[in-house]
């Protein structure tokens, strides 16, 4: 009945795991004092292979493997490609910005790749226990990475904060899983979807939904579960923030889509208003707080909270359209956010000698290319047309509009007007001519091959999403089609020919 060997269903994860193990082993067998930078290339090649493997999975019939615990469909492929792309950019970015002499580089690359395994698994898992395990794999990797700069005070603080609050959130999720198991007697998502409407103890189902939402919304840093974000982003090294502000979020959004649309479609009247409130809260809180930030990374942290809000607006849309819009937004957000963190990393350096918005003054004069890239990503974050940010917002809000949530759209658009203020303040400061008197001697940012490839990938992806979004949108729609309740109805909508090339 299912002729596809199970192993093919998790091929990208297998490749990633092997890469991670290889990186660790090579790292351990290299004599100390040897440059660890080439390990980054090993990891990058492995990630690229995993990306191709997920694209190849499109040729498989949609279906499940390993006793219906894991699924491959255009939906999973979409997110796999996205996550692998982000990880690739983050690896390229790290290779040129990590200090040469740091002796834990091998672990660093291995952790990124292992984190990617968890994230990829999370998007494919249709069994709640596997979901939990995948979430832990990805979270633990990011906890460690967040504290990678042990010599600073902020690094360990960030890691501990992230770890404590994160474990708390996963505990919520686990509690929810336990309750839903109690109510329905299963942890398989499709089974739950079938049994939940008729479950005898309906209260348990409701509680499970609420607890799981708390856990997931924490991971996507939506208000009111966002408090960890600014501190962690500030303390973690910038290349790690580029990764963790996008890839785990993309995975968590995939999980959210699965939970609300696949597992609890019957409770839409309940989760829909809840997500409406969370969306409005996230945008407003994120933007208002970002307005007052002087520190670039904190500002971008609040901005990412606001973007989670814009994305959640898509959940007010009609089913197919909403899912497609959410998928598209995740991709657009990832492209521009990875890009902007790459530029910030380059401009302020690994040690972050220039943490404040004011310090970026005259960047375009100091380094025109980097400055232009910064302006480009900020313009995209504002949501100016012909960039990915515009179509992301556009699809999200038009989905909400068609879903009848006109007030959500109005609040969202006013919010994006508000957000323009702080993005623009940053952009315009970078564009301003440098102040000769107060200018500190800043070394010109070193732009090398790997990191310029990373920035170029992000720029191209943002432009592609803004000028010819049709292909990616088609992929998003194909993935929306495969996200259905009863697994038997899954038709081979499959071959979404062109996936999004690079996030």
């Amino acid at each position, binding site marked *: 009945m299912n002729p596809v060997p199970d192993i093919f269903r998790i091929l990208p994860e297998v490749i990633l795991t092997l890469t991670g193990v290889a990186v660790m082993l090579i790292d351990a067998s290299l004599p100390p004092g040897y440059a660890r930078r080439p390990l980054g290339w090993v990891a990058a090649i492995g990630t690229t292979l995993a990306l191709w493997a997920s694209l190849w999975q499109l040729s498989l019939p949609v279906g499940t493997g390993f006793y219906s615990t894991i699924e491959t469909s255009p939906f999973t492929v979409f997110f796999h490609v996205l996550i692998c792309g982000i990880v690739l950019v983050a690896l390229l970015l790290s290779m040129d910005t990590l200090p040469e002499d740091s002796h834990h580089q091998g672990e660093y690359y291995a952790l990124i790749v292992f984190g990617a395994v968890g994230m990829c698994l999370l998007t494919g898992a249709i069994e709640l226990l596997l979901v939990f395990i995948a979430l832990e794999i990805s979270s633990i990797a990011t906890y460690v990475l967040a504290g990678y700069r042990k010599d600073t005070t902020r690094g360990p603080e960030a890691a501990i904060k992230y770890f404590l609050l994160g474990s708390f959130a996963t505990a919520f999720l686990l509690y929810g899983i336990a309750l839903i198991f109690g109510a329905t007697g299963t942890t398989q998502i499709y089974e739950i979807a079938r049994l939940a409407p008729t479950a005898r103890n309906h209260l348990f189902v409701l509680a499970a939904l609420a607890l799981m939402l708390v856990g997931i919304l924490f991971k996507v840093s939506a208000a009111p579960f966002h408090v960890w974000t600014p501190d962690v982003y500030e303390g973690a090294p910038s290349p790690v923030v580029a990764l963790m502000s996008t890839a785990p979020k993309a995975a968590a959004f995939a999980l959210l889509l699965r939970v609300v649309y696949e597992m609890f479609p019957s409770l839409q009247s309940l989760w829909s208003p809840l997500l409406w409130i969370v969306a409005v809260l996230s945008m407003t809180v994120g933007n208002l707080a970002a307005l007052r930030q002087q520190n670039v990374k904190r500002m971008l942290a609040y901005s990412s909270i606001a973007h989670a809000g814009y994305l959640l607006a898509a959940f007010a849309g009609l089913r197919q359209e909403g899912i497609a819009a959410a998928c598209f937004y995740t991709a657009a957000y990832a492209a521009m956010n990875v890009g902007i963190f790459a530029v910030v990393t380059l401009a302020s350096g690994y040690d972050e000698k220039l943490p404040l918005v004011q310090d970026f003054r005259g960047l375009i004069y100091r380094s*025109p290319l980097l400055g232009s890239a910064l302006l480009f990503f900020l313009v995209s974050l504002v949501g100016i047309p012909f960039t990915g940010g515009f179509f992301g917002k556009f699809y999200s809000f038009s989905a909400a509009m068609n879903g009848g949530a006109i007030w959500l*759209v109005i609040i969202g*658009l*006013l919010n994006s007007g508000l957000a323009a*203020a702080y993005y*623009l303040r940053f952009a*315009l400061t970078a564009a*301003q001519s440098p102040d000769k008197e107060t200018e500190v001697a800043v070394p010109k940012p070193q732009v090398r091959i790997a990191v310029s490839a990373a920035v170029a990938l992000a720029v191209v992806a943002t432009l592609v999403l803004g000028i010819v979004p*049709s292909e990616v949108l088609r992929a998003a729609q194909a993935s929306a089609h495969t996200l259905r309740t009863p697994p038997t109805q899954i038709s081979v909508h499959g071959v979404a020919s062109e996936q999004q090339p690079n996030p």
Partner: protein
Amino acid sequence: MNESILTLILLVPLAGAVLVALAPDRGKLPNWIALLTALATLGLTLHLPAHFALGQGGFQFEINRAWIDSPAIFYHVGVDGLSMWLVVLAGLLAPVGVLASWNAIKERRKVFYALFLVQQTAMFGVFISLDLMLYYGFWELSLAPMAILIAMYGRKNGPKAALKFFLFTFIPSAPLLVAILWLYARTGSFDFTTLQILIAHGNFPAGPMWWVALAFLFAFAVKVPIFPLHGWLADTYSEAPVALAMVVAGKLGLYSMLRFHIGLFPAQARALAPLLIALAVIGILYGACLALVQRDFWRLLAFAALSHLSLIVLGIYGFTFTGSAGAVFQILSHGVVDGALFLLLGYLYEHYASSQINAYGGLAGKLPRAATLFVITSLAMIGLPILSGFVGEFLILSSTFTGVSKGWAISASLGVILGAAYMLWLVQRIFYGPESGLTASKPADDLHFTELAALWPLAVLMLVLGLAPSIWLPSIQTGIHPPQATVHAILPASALSTTFTGEVQR
């Protein structure tokens, strides 16, 4: 050629921008690339009037291709008599802008010219887009290069002015997008002509339609700007580089009003016309009075612009045929005259590093060429017969007098008289009288070839516009669609747009 001409007009500046970005920053190379691109674009825009079929209604040089399937966004572009000359005007101001920046922009030339050319594309896009989403895209796109360049090359406090400009125009475009999406949710179309027909047949709820029309109007009114929404104008004029300041106000907003506010919502526009006429007259007088008392010539120019643009708004919302034609003509004239004024004042600012009017004096003897051109431009601005300002002002004021209300027309004329006062006084203070310390301290350095190459064509154009308006008016009139009923009427039933024949829904 006719098929692809508009696409070429969009793509050539963009290609030029890419070329500038890729070329090395050596000497004046970016300037030359930008100038050649701008001249090539001007040549392309001149193709439009050369091949424009005068008797034909509707849009010409049209292309309508699917761009994005879902939602159905089309690459639908075309021009009619309304937009054709605006495209040419934008094409003309591009080389003028490059020449105006030739010596003024000394640092980061590549960034400047690349963004300047992107800005050109965005403006052309606004004028020729017939798909609301495409239009919205270009409308928003025009903001970003402008804001960045104001921040980069601001005179004193660039970023602050840039932020103000951006937010003032960006926030009102949020309701505009909601309105566009609402229309799409109702009709499944972003297409201008389709929507125009659907709305004219009037199967829309009246209440929401009011809000939709208001959202459109609000976004445009800020961009023009109309009286209480002009807060950004003076700061932007003081800070923006000359090449951008000459295109920042007026054209885009006024054109959008004519095309998308009156064009799509004639009933609602008519109902609001009395309010807009009142605001326009207030703007004319208020702008003129404030211009009289400014000490800084950029701010004087800003309030003068408010006054002149309000006059055009009066022409548009008078809903008379002559008034509308005069308004479009006046947009062209204002673009040319304002451009020349910016160039001249920018030149003075470059050399004397002051925008305080009382720091100047007695320049006529030292800079005779600048003085001559300044006087010609000022006279055109005032509306002296045989120069360009006269035709438009006369058409607007006379049609207001006969077709709208004598009181408003007389009040507006008062603004025109005040306009003569502040402009002539400005000429007198800068160019005549005793030489001031500032002007005496610098050696005489009259306009150079680059400035003259930009200014003389403009000056000639002012004369031609004034002497032979008949070159322009017939094609403008085909764009405005003559009303069926008496020409000078403001009856609600005689709608400006021929497609709208339904009842006023309120």
